[in-house]
């Protein structure tokens, strides 16, 4: 494919979006590291209510108290004292595209976002540094009572709702990184969909880290009220820097009875980022929650989107695709907890390991006593492209109820010689043939994404695959 030539020239392992803009801050914490003073400073700067400051301080104590996990990925290089915990680039949120500063526009330009987005996408809340700077929302959603704003504004404008739900799905002391996020969170999205409202066009937010050693701790809370439906898309790209960055988000989803939430992510942090994310959803009676989770970037990702099926007839679905190239470790997976009768779940995981990359599926399927008639299926497929590549599967299955049906299956393989032979006998180069097999492999997940994301996913994987024959 001749048009790939220029892409090839960029080199395989060099991060595609590895440019950076000159840093221009409005507010930055006076020093690296974290202590109660820094946390109080963040809270004060944001003009938050007292209860949020107290919450942050409790979370900080829990963070400092918890040991760094020794399971999963290697976190031994992680230096929590070498990070700025809050940076805010601009004073006000852009109300329209014209208000967005030129250098930020340039960044979006390089990412190829605005044209396609402005026209076809309804709302874009884009996170630049730790703050949402660009945000537009279609008028009809306003009319329908849909709230889609950054979390800081959410706290200001809908304090009662935030106070009721914030941290209820993921308590601050759930794990070390949820504690960290709860202490220093900034940005992220707040979404509320009123009863019976269906949003057809996905809500989107782009996230971006732009300052070296700066952590990004966005906090997202999505509430889909009874009988409503929403699709939220989170996509990340980050420029390459020499020292390690940390991204540690907390995402909470609440699907009320008969509601439906789909949350899609394509994570493409640069290859020096630690991506340690806690995502959890509750699905009430007959509600459905779907996580579509693509992990391509970062140095180490540890992320296991979870669904707690708390109402009868609830359904949870997790689709996970991971790509681990040289030096990367994708420790991803999913958790489903069946806590009510006749609930069902499906976890599908596809991973590709290339070079010295390592992809790990780590999952939990738990059926509590009384969750009669629950059905669950977990399927993991791993594709290995190089001799030094590694893949692991750790599916925990805990069943306390007999009237259930659970299945788990996993396979590991390399790209089949016969598949390659067939494609190459049709005149395809080996490289294209492998790319085609890989695209076929992730197809079940790509087809669940909106078109432009599916294209981006395929394209990113294709980029990573360049020069994979050897």
């Amino acid at each position, binding site marked *: 494919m001749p048009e790939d030539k220029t892409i090839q020239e960029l080199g395989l392992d060099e991060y595609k979006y590895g440019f950076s803009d000159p840093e221009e801050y409005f507010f930055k914490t006076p020093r690296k590291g974290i202590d109660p003073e820094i946390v109080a400073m963040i809270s004060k700067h944001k003009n938050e209510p007292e209860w949020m400051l107290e919450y942050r301080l409790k979370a900080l104590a829990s963070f400092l108290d918890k040991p760094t996990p020794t399971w999963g990925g290697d976190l031994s290089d992680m230096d929590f004292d070498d990070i700025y915990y809050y940076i805010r680039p601009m004073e006000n949120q852009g109300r329209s595209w014209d208000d967005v500063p030129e250098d930020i526009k340039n960044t979006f330009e390089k990412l190829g976002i605005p044209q396609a987005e402005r026209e076809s996408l309804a709302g874009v809340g884009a996170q630049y540094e730790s703050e949402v700077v660009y945000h537009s929302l279609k008028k009809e959603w306003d009319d329908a009572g849909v709230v889609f704003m950054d979390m800081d504004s959410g706290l200001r404008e809908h304090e009662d709702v935030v106070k009721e739900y914030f941290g209820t799905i993921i308590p601050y002391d759930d794990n070390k990184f949820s504690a960290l996020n709860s202490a220093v969170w900034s940005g992220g999205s707040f979404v509320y969909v009123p009863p019976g409202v269906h949003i057809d066009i996905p809500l989107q937010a782009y996230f971006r880290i732009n300052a070296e050693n700066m952590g990004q701790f966005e906090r997202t809370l999505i509430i889909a009220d009874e009988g409503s439906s929403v699709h939220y898309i989170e996509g990340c790209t980050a420029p390459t820097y020499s020292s390690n960055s940390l991204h540690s988000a907390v995402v909470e989803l609440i699907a009320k009875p008969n509601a439906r939430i789909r949350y899609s992510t394509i994570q493409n942090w640069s290859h020096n980022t630690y991506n340690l994310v806690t995502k959890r959803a509750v699905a009430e009676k007959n509600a459905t929650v779907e996580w579509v989770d693509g992990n391509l970037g970062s140095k180490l990702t540890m992320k296991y989107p979870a669904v707690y099926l708390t109402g009868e007839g609830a359904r949870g679905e997790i689709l996970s695709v991971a790509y681990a190239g040289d030096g990367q470790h994708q420790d991803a997976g999913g958790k489903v907890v069946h806590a009510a009768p006749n609930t069902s779940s499906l976890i599908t995981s596809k991973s590709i390991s290339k070079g010295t990359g390592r992809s790990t599926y780590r999952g939990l399927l738990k059926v509590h006593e009384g969750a009669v008639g629950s059905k669950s299926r977990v399927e993991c497929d791993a594709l290995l492209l190089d001799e030094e590549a590694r893949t*692991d*599967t750790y599916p925990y299955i805990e*069943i306390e109820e*007999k009237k259930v049906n659970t299945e*788990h299956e996993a396979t590991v393989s390399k790209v089949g010689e016969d598949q390659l032979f067939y494609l190459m006998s049709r005149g395809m180069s080996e490289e294209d043939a492998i790319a085609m097999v890989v695209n076929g492999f992730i197809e079940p997940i790509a087809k669940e994404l909106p078109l432009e994301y599916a294209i981006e996913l395929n394209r990113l994987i294709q980029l990573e695959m360049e020069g994979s024959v050897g």
Partner: protein
Amino acid sequence: MTENGIPEVLKNKGASAEAVKALSSFKDEPSWLTEKRLSAWKAFEAMPMPTLRDEPWKYTDISDFSFDDYLPYSPSPSVSSENELPEAVQTLIEEGEKNSALIVQHNSETAFSRVDDELAKKGVILTDLHTALREHGDLVKDKLFGLVPEGYDKFAALSAAAFSGGSFLYVPRGVDVEVPIQSYRWMDVSGSITPRTLVVVEDGANVTYIDEYASSGGEELALSNCAVELYVGEGANLRYVSLQNWARNVLHFNTIRSEAGKDAAINSLVVSFGAELSRTNVEAGLSAPGSDSEMLGLYFADEDQLVDHHTLQDHLAPNAHSDLLYKGALRDESLAVFSGLIRVEPGAQKTDAYQTNRNIILGTDDAYAVSLPRLEILADDVKCSHGSTTGQVDETELFYLMSRGIPRREAEKLVVFGFFGDVTSRVPLEGLREKLNNAIEGKIGIGFDKKSVA
């Protein structure tokens, strides 16, 4: 062995460096072994007791366990013929597989052993470990503790420090042992039993070896702490069966590890029916090209039993094959844990590895099944897969049988038999199969009686 001459220190509960030393000198052991036991005791004392926070013990609570509660050594009489053995043991032997060699450990000592003349002429050795150390030291020294060393875990350290009795099977190069060799471990005291099994099958040899564990039961807790080391040479075949049917007052810990030579085949079957708590590590080392391991497991947990299997298919060499199938039934308040890992080391290309765990939950709703089928793959040209299912008795199968006029209870029994049939049908040992079928029937009988009342 009589009470006479037993060091006083071994008559107290628990153990110490002094007790370990006394046991070694009582057994007239060479100094290297005394040193080994002492260093293992040190390792045992230094290692903390595993807790629920330790990944391999996440579901198996042994916080109440202390070796200080158990007598380290229980003597038993040695007899000169099979019909002088305790009657219960004679029944086990009668109901068991026909054998060509036999060894019986009664509590801490070997009560009886026999090798058919024909086998002895071919150079086959079956004896307890103490005799083996005295008479065949050169065959034993390099291999004992080679696969289950003191550093493996706390229980392996205790085994290396305090073992007594045990068995050593040696099958020389090219010798084909057609009739199985049988070992029984019988316990009728509430103390502890610490046997080790060492099997050495030389190149091109063939043998079937069965370790069977049973006891008379009692009120007080008893401890069974075992270690099994299986060495199988180039092109050799070993079928190994571990049949654990202890009474309910026993806590059973066992680690079974094997090493397969080039083109060697090891077929193992691990059965866990008895004991209050049964923890078994089964690890197959596919250490040479072309080696093959079939790993079968069968368990049936009832009442408040805890049955825990940790398996490893360790692919160290290319072109090896392993196939694991563990099936278990649970009822009442029991807990069954299966944690299996396929590990393919770098360079182990053309590995072919499979792993399946299936659980069936019967009767009440209080049983708890945990299944952790894991993969760690560090080579790319491999075929690996695993599967795990947990569910209840299949209603369609029941319906089919009931529609043929079979009452529900009988139909359920048949379905459970069919469930286990996948495993038992793969073991070509008639006597053993019958024993397993009887035991399964016994377990099902009780289970469904309870259910039909409710």
